[in-house]
């Protein structure tokens, strides 16, 4: 079955955030890159991300946050994954993650410390994250595990 071999990504916009356009483009870009998107859309809570990942046996969860509340909304997702038995799943996060102009290095560290594998600043092209996904999945397949906070870029 051809579909079996495709990586699967659960994507959505977390919290009370309604930014819909980037989400739709990301879904399109994943399809184009032969990745299966499971799009849970805007205004999704952590439980919805985790449930969708469990149901679809996803390889990764991609969390978007565009409205500045990312710091509050994203905390604890890794723990929820562990509780659901998918503690090793790849977690990526991207967008306007915090309020005000902060150094991106600080913001990235903040999210890596929360247990995300990768964090992306605003303006990142979908292709960048897709490339990382394929890289990380290969690494995963080869090594059986992945260094969760490897700063690969």
């Amino acid at each position, binding site marked *: 079955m051809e579909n079996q071999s495709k990586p699967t990504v659960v994507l959505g916009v977390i*919290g*009370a*955030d*309604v930014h*819909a*356009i980037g989400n*739709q*483009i990301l879904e*399109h870009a994943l399809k184009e890159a032969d990745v299966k998107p499971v799009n849970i*859309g*805007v*205004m999704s809570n952590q439980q919805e991300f985790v449930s969708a990942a469990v149901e679809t046996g996803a390889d990764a969860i991609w969390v978007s946050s*565009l*409205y*500045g*509340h990312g*710091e*509050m909304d994203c905390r604890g997702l890794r723990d929820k994954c562990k509780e659901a038995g998918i503690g090793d799943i790849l977690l990526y996060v991207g967008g*306007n*993650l*915090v*309020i*005000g*102009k902060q150094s991106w290095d600080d913001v990235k560290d903040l999210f890596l410390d929360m247990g995300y594998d990768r964090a992306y600043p*605003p*303006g990142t092209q979908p292709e960048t994250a897709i490339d990382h996904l394929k890289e990380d999945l290969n690494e995963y397949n080869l090594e059986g595990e992945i260094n969760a906070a490897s700063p690969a870029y």
Partner: protein
Amino acid sequence: MSNLKNKKIPEEEFFKEREEVLKAWPTGEDVDLDEAIQYQKDLPEHKKMSARLMQAEEEGETLIQPRAGVALPDELVELLSYLDEEGEADLLPVTIDSYTRQNQYKEAEQGIEESQEMGRSMLNGFPAVNHGLETCRKVIESLNLPVQVRHGTPDARLLAEITMAGGFSDYEGGGISYNIPYAKKVSLEDTIRDWQYVDRLIGYYQEQGVDINREPFGPLTGTLVPPAVSHVVAILEALLAAEQGVKYLTLGYGQNGNLVQDVAAIQTLRELADSYLTDEGYDDIKLTTVFHQWMGGFPQDESKAYAVISWGATAAALSGATKVIVKTPHEAMGIPTKEANASGLKATKQIVNMLKDQSLEQTAKLDREKDMIKKEVRAILDKVKELGEGDWAKGTVRAFEAGVIDIPFAPSKFNKGKILPARDNIGAVRYLNTGNLPLPDDVKAFHEERLAERGEFEDREATFQMVIDDIYAIGKGMLIGRPRE
């Protein structure tokens, strides 16, 4: 369909509902409507939005207004005073945080606490409901300009009660414009009904002699929205508000980037709204217009962001809009510092001042653009009325169900999501897919021709990739998303 209809809510029913509304959060109990009306009447003239807008309209000014809001009141006053004094803002906003917009007052409370602890705002706006009306009044009393509530709240009844009693003189939003782009699964019937309440409240203030301004949210999803689509929503919300007794209305439009289309949009918005309101018997409405600087993706580079801001200010001034909502050079980076916010305002002020006495001449191309917009709006609204059997509220709900009204890129499941916009060869927004919009054949043909022109120039078919290219284009320094080389 429930018993939703476009009919003024009877006073008794309104007051009965009001009791429930005020119970939703403890601060609701502090609102005393008679006292609030007196408070509004006692506001000095220079803090009244309607008065300031009318003056600008008369003098042909384009006023400038930022977006801004933080979690705590002292910081809010500091921020807004700075935007007044350093940024030369003409009008002030208080942007409400996203938890309050979802009526998640507990999360908002947590955001207030964390903001106090962290010493910086953890919320993307001011949680006015949690703070309550006394704190709102302190804010209003500390400022020297009219202040508007700007948010994105599907059920904004309690927020309206508290902020209107708190001395705000303008309220943004509407049952369509604060639902379809701002919610995922809230029914349109519910939000239209809840916004009838908001309009009825403001209509009640109006009956008591308090001129509060109402502003439907013009840009909707903010990216490549064809003017007719947002005009339809603006006019419907104007009709719904007028029925509830609202008299002061500011209708909005979000910049698309082609100057002729943007000027045509503001001119037709005014002309069409005036015509529909008059035809429906609301003949004492004071109409003004608001132009939103480009709401889509911005360049990361601040100098380039200034250029996008300036181009927005230019189109606003040349269109003759009553006010312009201003972006900041930090737009691509998220919520701006107060300095960046003031910078956007100052650049905008310089442009609107330099262009105050200039305008775009009525030309054949401008006329054609206006003509298309008017035909589209009339075709859609005719169908809305037909679907509603004469009732605009019912018609709106049915029109969304049928895709007769359809907003591109909207998150709501009550939106059909079949239409797809793309730029033509001069950057005007056209329909790549008209979905179920009931557009006349000649209008459809016009849009097809415009897109064919671009397709030929670029030697490619118009596909979703073209739409994506257009969405990213301004952020990458262009207006039209030409194929990558």
